[in-house]
């Protein structure tokens, strides 16, 4: 099907239903750069992410993970470089129906109830009421907040708010999900549940971009990218990275890549 995107003007095959294989490109990043005044937060990033991947962005605080995600979601205007999502050059509103985003800060309405938040974010995506009710039940079960449906978000604990935020990012069944530290402040048991769920998502062909500081989570990613001062210093499957540097754990891999010895 040959169409012109009404939004970004991209011509050619524009179809979201692609065959289920990891060679289908979902994100294509070229020379992506962001500078704040003189400070370069992201330095000429080239990266391609395929359908059904869980791509983990790793790196110390301030290494540019959030800045990358903000550019990939069209929130930040890159200083240089381009990003294509599903073949569309950003900025492009028409693909946003298929994108889910969980910002690093909780980003939900604290003066509304959990239910109101879920329904509000769902309604933005034009989901029918019946479907929304079903999705709400699924999401509340997933983040284990069934009993908190009608509570005001301001009365929830920090981790609970975080869980509502994750549920809001997934309520519309996006095909591409950006999760900025979804497991920060989440207890170990629920963290395991989350990763099981992420696993089931990628099995359905959903692509997940995730940032984390937990090494056990990094190990569960299909690929990880290690950032240092805005530069991608390593990119590959966790096992490959470990083999290449002849280390036993990802933690040691990163220390080795950063040129530091294990203490």
């Amino acid at each position: 099907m040959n169409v012109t995107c009404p939004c970004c003007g991209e011509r050619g095959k524009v179809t979201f239903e692609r065959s289920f294989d990891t060679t289908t490109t979902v994100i294509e990043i070229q020379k992506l750069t962001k500078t704040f005044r003189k400070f370069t937060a992201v330095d000429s990033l080239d990266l391609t992410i395929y359908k059904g991947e869980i791509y983990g962005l790793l790196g110390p605080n301030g290494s540019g993970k959030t800045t990358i995600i903000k550019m990939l979601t069209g929130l930040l205007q890159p200083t240089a470089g381009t990003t294509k999502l599903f073949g569309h050059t950003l900025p492009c509103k028409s693909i946003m129906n298929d994108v889910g985003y969980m910002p690093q800060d909780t980003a939900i309405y604290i003066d509304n109830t959990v239910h109101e938040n879920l329904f509000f974010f769902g309604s933005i995506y034009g989901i029918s009421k019946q479907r929304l009710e079903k999705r709400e039940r699924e999401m509340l079960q997933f983040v284990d907040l069934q009993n908190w449906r009608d509570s005001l978000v301001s009365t929830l604990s920090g981790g609970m708010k975080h869980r509502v935020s994750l549920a809001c990012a997934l309520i519309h069944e996006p095909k591409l999900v950006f999760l900025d530290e979804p497991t920060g402040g989440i207890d170990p048991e629920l963290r395991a549940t989350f990763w099981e769920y992420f696993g089931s998502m990628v099995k359905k062909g959903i692509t997940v971009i995730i940032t984390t500081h937990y090494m056990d989570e990094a190990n569960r990613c299909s690929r990880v990218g290690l950032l240092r001062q805005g530069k991608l210093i390593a990119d590959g499957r966790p096992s490959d990275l470990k083999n290449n540097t002849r280390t036993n754990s990802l933690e040691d891999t990163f220390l080795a890549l950063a040129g530091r010895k294990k203490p």
Partner: protein
Amino acid sequence: MKLRRTLGFSRRALLQFRHDRRTFAFVLIMPLLMILIFGYTFGGDVKNIAVEIVNQDTGLPPGTSTLLPQGLFLAKNITKNFDRNTLSLHENTNIDDARQKVHDGKAWAAIIFPANFTQNFLTTLTTQPGTAHPKVEIYLDASNPTISAAVIKTISHTIQITLKELTTTLNKTQIEMPITIEQTYAYGGSDTRFIDYFAPGVISFAIMMVTTMITIILFVNERRNGTLQRLLVSPASESEIVAGYALAFAVIGVFQSIVVLVAAILLFNITIIGNIFLALVVILLLAFGHQGLGILLSAAAKNEMQAVQFIPLILFPSILLAGLFWPIESIPSYLQPLSYIIPLRYGIDAERSIMLRGWGIGEIWVDILVLILFALFTLSASVLLLKRKN
């Protein structure tokens, strides 16, 4: 623009107010409190003004005139007709003492009828006018303009009434009174009070304050909490976001205005002679324009603290320069041009014209046009602002 999505924004904002009872109360209580405080302090008529009255009128000796009733004491008749509610009269026989009382601040005024008051009245009636006019002396403490105006108004009003009485008792001959004051009212009437003038202004002012402040705080929070980022990463367009909030404020504005109007009618029996729907249209336009202004200002505030700093910036020009309390003509002429750039001025003017004069769109179209342009400008500017990326 998708209607369902737009309604989603309005719904969420309104639900937030339902949970946030305090803010909701503020929306209603602020204008009611203003009406109550200003209505009762400014609005009521001045009462119990202490006034000394010295009556030296010797009246008409019997047999002097066939024209006027025998033994007429005109000053006495006038004194009898004074409104004792407004003036608290104290009869005094000594002019100097009466003046001293005013001087000492024990009375606001001394009214003195000289000895030949009735006599002079008769002379003026019978001979050519211009010789000896009947004269009332008023010694006034005019340090409070409201009170002195009330004293003067009462005196002239009472003299008029007394003269009218006199004419009706003298039905045998048609005489020409030396003074006739005839008042007819284009708008309002002798019973129009400050509150009638004030209420349309308060309604406009309240909607302006509430909409601007709440919008600034809502959008500062949207930015700070990151919810706005989420909206911008959704298929929702910036205009849907702005329209969604506009709809929510329209609901709040209409609700607020109706409650305030009903309260003002019940408590103060205010006059509304114009079209109430037109009045609500003006309210909506004010709400839309100031919502846009709020979004624009929110971009200049990093947090709620900074947002609150906008209050005096908006409050004082609106209170002082938009004609809320005083007519714009009464502010210094070099400040008057400033009032033209305050949108509230047009809202207040329109509401007054509708409610007090019963004017329609034909007379207030300039106000309406300015408000429409203001709303179009701020709303489209805020859509552009939301579209701007860092």
